[in-house]
């Protein structure tokens, strides 16, 4: 019995990372994915905030799942999420003000991030505490991972750096040193849309091969 539970828990965890990866497979939470991935650092901050909110809201929703009236549940989910997002927002403002500045309204916009409300509805409102938390961690890591991959590609092509460390030496217009010509378009909205489109295509290709 204990063994079976272990298997289902590890399955829940892995599912969030790949099979049901929120961005790449379920197409949830696209707005932050596109908006904050111009560089890795804001993407990572965003991912961590989402993990925090996801875990906390899953815990609360899971604990109160038996008390919820069906027609009021979405409202309750949203209020729970809004509370935790306020906490995360104040925390970032206090301890990492520069990141809070960069991310701007996208931190409060976690409230309407479909991933969180989807997990509250699909997982936490039907499962116990442990499964809900594991699910939240898996989903959160899947989201953060995707964000970082996308941000890594975009930052590398737009500036030649990853995590603000120089990888490709960008050409200096005066001394003409370095060989890499930065793709300005990658830092713009168009880069976000096209890179994510191609990434989704790649994932489709890989899953087709496996099947």
């Amino acid at each position, binding site marked *: 019995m204990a063994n079976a539970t272990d298997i289902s828990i590890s399955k829940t965890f892995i599912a969030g990372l790949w099979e049901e990866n929120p961005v790449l497979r379920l197409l949830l939470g696209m707005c932050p994915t596109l908006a904050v991935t111009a560089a890795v650092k804001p993407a990572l901050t965003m991912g961590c905030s989402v993990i925090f909110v996801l875990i906390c809201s899953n815990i609360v929703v899971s604990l109160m799942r038996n008390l919820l009236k069906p027609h009021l549940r979405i409202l309750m989910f949203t209020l729970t999420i809004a509370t935790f997002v306020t906490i995360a927002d104040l925390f970032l403002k206090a301890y990492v003000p520069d990141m809070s500045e960069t991310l701007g309204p996208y931190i409060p916009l976690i409230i309407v991030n479909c991933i969180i409300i989807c997990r509250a509805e699909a997982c936490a409102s039907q499962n116990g505490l442990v499964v809900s938390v594991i699910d939240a961690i898996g989903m959160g890591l899947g989201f953060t991972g995707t964000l970082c991959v996308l941000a890594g590609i975009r930052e590398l092509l737009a500036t030649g750096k990853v995590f603000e460390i120089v990888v490709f030496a960008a050409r200096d217009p005066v001394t003409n040193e370095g060989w890499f010509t930065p793709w300005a378009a990658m830092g713009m*909205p168009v880069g976000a849309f096209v890179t994510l489109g191609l990434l989704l295509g790649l994932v489709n290709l890989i899953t087709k091969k496996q099947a």
Partner: protein
Amino acid sequence: MDTVTVLLMGFISIMIVNNMVFSKFLGICPYLGVSGRIDMAFGMGCAVTFVITLSGALTWLIDYCVLQHLGLEVMRYVCFILVIAGAVQLVEMYVRKFFPAMYDSFGIFLPLITTNCAILGLCLFINLWGIDNLPEAVVLSIGAGLGFTLAICIMAGIRENLALADVPICLKGAPITLITAGILTLAFMGFAGMIR
């Protein structure tokens, strides 16, 4: 500049130059989900425009007249989301009563307007830009709603034609839609700098 010019500039700016979908990445979920057919896209755009106008005005009033006076800025997000949820509920009841066919075809996407980031996003931007009068807040809200409608209708028109095109199999569906959206953004970037 007189008031009318300021309002007009703000309107054009948020509708075209700083379009919610193309430059702020807000409202991507319905933008990808409902843009399959042009009539549904237009209906969705109208619903969003209505909700965004209502909630833009209401959240500005609540924020400016109540929260800032009482020093309760911490409660801002909770209040905003409650106003939006209420407005969506109103639209949902209206559509179900008067346009039942449209209600059926929207399915899950109608209640999901609540979690449309364009709406909460606009309320937050109005707050962030420090808009201090109601007419400007209302005009910006209408502009943002119309901008969203414009974006989703253009996309639906393209996708109706895209359905007939020969797309590589792994790019079918969401990937090609995203790439198309990217190219559309590029077109809209031509407006950048027209108004700050």
